[in-house]
């Protein structure tokens, strides 16, 4: 099977940017072993449609994101319409259809961080990397997301890069943080 799909313009525009393609049709390939990995996850939940959120959770943990073809395989295994799976993926902000960067940046915009200037820190990251929240840099190195409270309000504003926590971040400190990941 090798079928062409029409994606929403917003998703498409972004995928085109990522793939550097100028066509309107996107064909994404999924290697056999990945399909088998998804099948395993679905099997571990007895292919129960009620377990969709758990299956998505584990699958995203494995792949880092939930592209269309992964949702297709899950829908097929759980006997759900793929539209329904997509509906759940797009409802929860935790799930993402776009690959995160090698170094995913999470800026806490919870109450404490917010009042201590997280917004300005976030703006600085966006400016430095020239991407919006939820996007990944074209070279795949960084992505930006917001989260609500990591339980370190004493260190507000807090930024996570991967698993590493940075406290009391100021807009001026953004460049230095990014520099740590420049090889």
């Amino acid at each position, binding site marked *: *099977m*090798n*079928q062409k*799909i*029409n*994606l*929403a*313009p917003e*998703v498409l525009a972004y995928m085109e940017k990522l793939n550097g393609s100028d066509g309107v049709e996107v*064909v*994404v*390939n*999924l*290697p*056999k072993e990945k*399909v088998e990995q998804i099948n395993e996850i679905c099997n571990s939940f007895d292919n129960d449609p009620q377990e969709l959120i758990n299956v998505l959770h584990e699958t995203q943990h494995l792949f880092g994101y939930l592209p*269309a*073809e992964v*949702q*297709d*395989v899950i*829908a*097929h295994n759980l006997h*759900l*319409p*793929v*539209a*329904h*799976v*997509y*509906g759940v993926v*797009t*409802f929860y*902000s935790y799930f993402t259809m776009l690959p995160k960067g090698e170094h995913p940046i999470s800026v806490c915009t919870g109450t404490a961080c917010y009042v201590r200037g997280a917004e300005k820190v976030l703006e600085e990251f966006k400016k430095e990397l020239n991407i919006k929240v939820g996007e990944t840099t074209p070279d795949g190195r960084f992505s930006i997301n917001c989260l609500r409270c990591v339980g370190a309000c004493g260190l507000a504003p807090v930024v996570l890069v991967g698993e590493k926590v940075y406290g009391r971040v100021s807009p001026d400190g953004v460049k230095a943080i990014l520099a740590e990941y420049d090889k």
Partner: protein
Amino acid sequence: MIRLTIDKKTIEVEPGTTILKAARKVGVEIPTLCHFELCDMGIENKPGGCRICVVEVEGRRNLAPSCITEVQEGMVINTHNIRVLNARTTVLKLIISDHPFDCLVCAKSGDCELQDLARQFGIRTVPYGGEQSHYRKDTSPSIIRDVDKCIMCRRCEMMCNEVQTVGALSAVNRGFMSVVAPAFEMNLEDSPCTYCGQCVSVCPTGALTEVDHTNDIIRALSDPKKTVVVQTAPAVRAALGEEFGLEPGTLVTGRMVSALRELGFDHVFDTDFSADLTIMEEGTELLQRLRGHLAGDSSVRLPILTSCCPGWVNFFEHNFPDLLDVPSTAKSPQQMFGAIAKSWFADKIGVNRKDLVVVSIMPCLAKKYECQRDEFSIDGNPDVDFSISTRELAAFIKQANIDFLNLPEGDFDDPLGESSGAGVIFGNTGGVIEAACRTAYELHTGKTLEKVEFEALRGMEGIRSATIDFDGLPLHIGIAHGLGNARKLLDEVREGRSQYHAIEIMACPGGCIGGGGQPFHHGNSEILARRAAAIYSEDERKTIRKSHENPSIIRLYREFLGEPGSHKAHSLLHTEYFPKSNEVTINMQS
């Protein structure tokens, strides 16, 4: 029983009754928007999302949505006091604040539940500014999605998933960004949509509408080089009158014929004729398969499934690609008509098929897609050029200033306008298989059927079964209407558990009378029952009630086709099916 007071009226109702339904029992009509019900069919949508139906429950702090709040002992409810009316008006203004103000050019104008509410509540200004939805319009061969007009009632989602089990539509995204859309927000055309149109038939606004082909027809009618013929499906005559204020169930066959003639069609024909033709071909196929099966031929596939419903054809192509050899290969009546009109009839009147325009009036939206399928055209010239719905015809008649109610009773033209009662009942669930039985019984047994009505095959239950005695041979028949019910019977076939010799399937609840192109019933299942009764009464009025006794059909075989199932009949009247994958993107690399 639970006692409560609604607008000073005391009432006792069963536990579990909602305030909305309790109110209706005492004649109090609470306005609703997202709520939708087809009660006899167990179809109900009540997400409690729109909050138009809020009422005041004394002693409760907030207003309660009446469609999802169950009654409690001693409740005192006010459904229309100032507090409630204020809340409803505010809610309505908020809904309208993100709705395009293009009622003047909206296909749903005059039949829009949101517009009705705005009028009822006297909304003159909307004080709330702010963001507006701007989503692309999605046009498929049958259905247009304009989700800027969507109010997220999710009736379409309920129809598509729970009733039809098609799964093309789902609510996606969150908050202001949420829309009802196919997976990955792709176009409907690329989704598993069957074009059954049930989403359109329940949409309260203009978010889901049919593709309108009226202007194509006007163009053809005004072209002096074209000969334009029209065919009308059985279910249209039982519903068209509703658009002109007639009681549901009023048959308007004669007036419809006169109206079509006034509109300028050169020949007014009847799909009932080709329904008879379908019975000749499908009935013959049924007998052939049955005899093969009885003779022990293991290559014969049983049960045979009817194939005249294009929504159903799309459904099995998508969901049962492994069972494509089970349905009858007979084309639908619409397509049989087109094939015969552009061959036998075109030759008769000496017109080249390219100068003959075939228009069909259908209760259906899937027919729009069906007539555009590649296999139903020759050198790019389709057998059926345009298919319009009952609603589009009504609008066309009004536009042409035809006094429909006072038209004389017209008669269909010959030869493609003559039909039997068997052709008429195609419009009801169970009708096709009943028509097939009338013919197959007589062909199989050589005896005359004493009573042509097979009552056991009639009714409105979603799945029905009956055993018909074919002179000692018990023929097991299954009937399903609504694609969710069809799926259950097909799963049995797939698993080898099916006990049936023949199964009739119609995609829409009630059959064609409840089709996606019919006048909006707004959830009133009584309307469907009356349409069904009208169809059966038209059958009773006919002198000829069996397809194989239709003189024009006999003539068509004698002059042109030869025998049912002949080589010529096969090339013109039969088709093949194509597997369609539901998986949109999987590309396996080994």
